[in-house]
């Protein structure tokens, strides 16, 4: 079941939409490097139409915000956490119009959260331009208690809510922005193998 899963999203990489009237780039941590790479493929005019929402996350030491500021975006909002980014994003999308192009760059759970906000705002997920950067950590939903476990790097992993040992399946839900976790030892209680660090 480890073969490429068709529910697994693909993140083709950031490319500029030169027709968009307004670009909204939402990024965290090393995702900033994807934005800096994007800058090499486009122009200053592009960034003059661009708002960047940036969460430093684990990349604070790299001072990406200075590099992003040098792109001269229309706005650069540096925000301290995922919830504050999403709150700002929700507010921006509430008044955005159809000429807006949304971009997301960062870890998979981060992109997942951006897509969730996009769906809620009436944007088709296929319209969002995405690039995966940084850790391969996952957000996992426990199919039993429905709790989300963040920053999962191992398989199996203990649900952070109900404590069940979960096998992390490659099956991904865009609506939930999470992979599916299913009890690993239901048929032989206590037989769960030790967690293996695989989503680094």
């Amino acid at each position, binding site marked *: *079941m480890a*073969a490429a*899963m*068709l*529910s*697994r999203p693909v993140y083709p990489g950031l490319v500029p939409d030169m027709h968009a009237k307004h670009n909204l780039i939402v990024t965290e941590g090393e995702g900033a490097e994807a934005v800096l790479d994007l800058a090499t493929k486009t122009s200053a005019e592009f960034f003059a139409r661009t708002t960047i929402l940036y969460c430093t996350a684990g990349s604070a030491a790299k001072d990406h915000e200075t590099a992003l500021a040098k792109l001269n975006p229309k706005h650069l909002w540096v925000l301290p956490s995922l919830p504050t980014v999403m709150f700002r994003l929700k507010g921006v999308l509430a008044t955005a119009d159809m000429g807006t192009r949304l971009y997301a760059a960062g870890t998979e759970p981060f992109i997942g959260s951006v897509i969730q906000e996009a769906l809620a705002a009436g944007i088709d997920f*296929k319209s969002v331009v995405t690039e995966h950067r940084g850790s391969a950590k996952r957000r996992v*939903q426990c*199919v*039993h208690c*429905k709790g989300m476990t963040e920053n999962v790097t191992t398989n199996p992993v203990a649900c952070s809510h109900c404590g*069940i040992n979960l096998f992390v*399946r*490659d*099956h991904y*839900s*865009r*609506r*939930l922005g999470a992979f*599916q976790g*299913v*009890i690993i030892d*239901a*048929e*032989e*209680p206590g037989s769960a193998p030790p967690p293996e660090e695989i989503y680094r």
Partner: protein
Amino acid sequence: MGLMFKDETYRGDFTFANSPAAIRHFPFPFHEDKYMYAVNIEPHVPGRKGTAYEFPIDIDEHYLADMRDRAITLAEDPLRCQSLPHMLAAEWDLVELLMTSMARDYPEHFSLTRDGDQWHWINRPMKIEDKFTFGNVATLPLRPMEYITRQCQGDFCLLDQRDGDLWMDAGIVTSQADWSLDFDIGMSFKEWHAPVPMAHEIGIFDRALKFLLAMQIGHPVRRLNWTMTINPRLDTAPETYPKWGIDRTTVTPENVGDKVHLRVELQALWRLPRSNAIVFSIRGYLLKMRELVTIPKWSRRMHRVLKTLPPEIAAYKGLSRYQQTTIDWLSKYDDGQPTSLGFFPD
């Protein structure tokens, strides 16, 4: 002839069993002595009398027990029934399909009187009677899909068609073979089938999707799917796997006949007229090995299919753990004689 509805359970003391008529009613899924994935879609036209194919919507002796079990499952976990907001038109289409089919084919149990959009529905076995305005949600005690599917056997998914794909955007799923509606809702056709092994590689889903996108009003289709279940349990959702997974370890040579069940899904699909959505109905049937071996052709074939099943498929269906024990038990009922082609008993 009216059906006699049985008082039985799908949990706890598991009193579910099939009458001799219900055994012959069972949609045995193997037309030859081996099994491999195939698109195997055929027109859903009325079939042989006394079988699961006789009517488009099949109601059988387990009706009341099924509906009771669904109510228990929904009371414990309401997320088994969900519908995204744009699916309301498809929900009403479903109400029409199920009510008209049930009232037409089982008039002694159900009746529907329509005067324009004023509808009067009577479900005698469940002692339900409602007058409502078709299309007006406020006139029904529940949302339309939940209202009617709490009164109809089988799971139902509503698929929205857009952008050259089908999207599972609504459903009520309380007797599934280990997949989660709550997790899969909103997915595209290939996304929700992603966990199925081998079938993608041989192009099954490409062909099936193209076929379904072109489905027309008035031309429903069906296919069979199967798995095996330990104990006659309808609710084998991943959500409750901690409860039922352990059952798979309880199979012994002595109890195969009563514990191991062949579980067949008669999957039927209709194009819904006003919403342009597709309804995907998954009508499940359970048959104990002890019941199965009352039909000599089925015992021989079941034994041979299990013996030659590719291991990937056995693992996906979750039967690896008790496959050999079941094969050994069935071998006593396989005299090696040839079997005739086709599903039905000789």
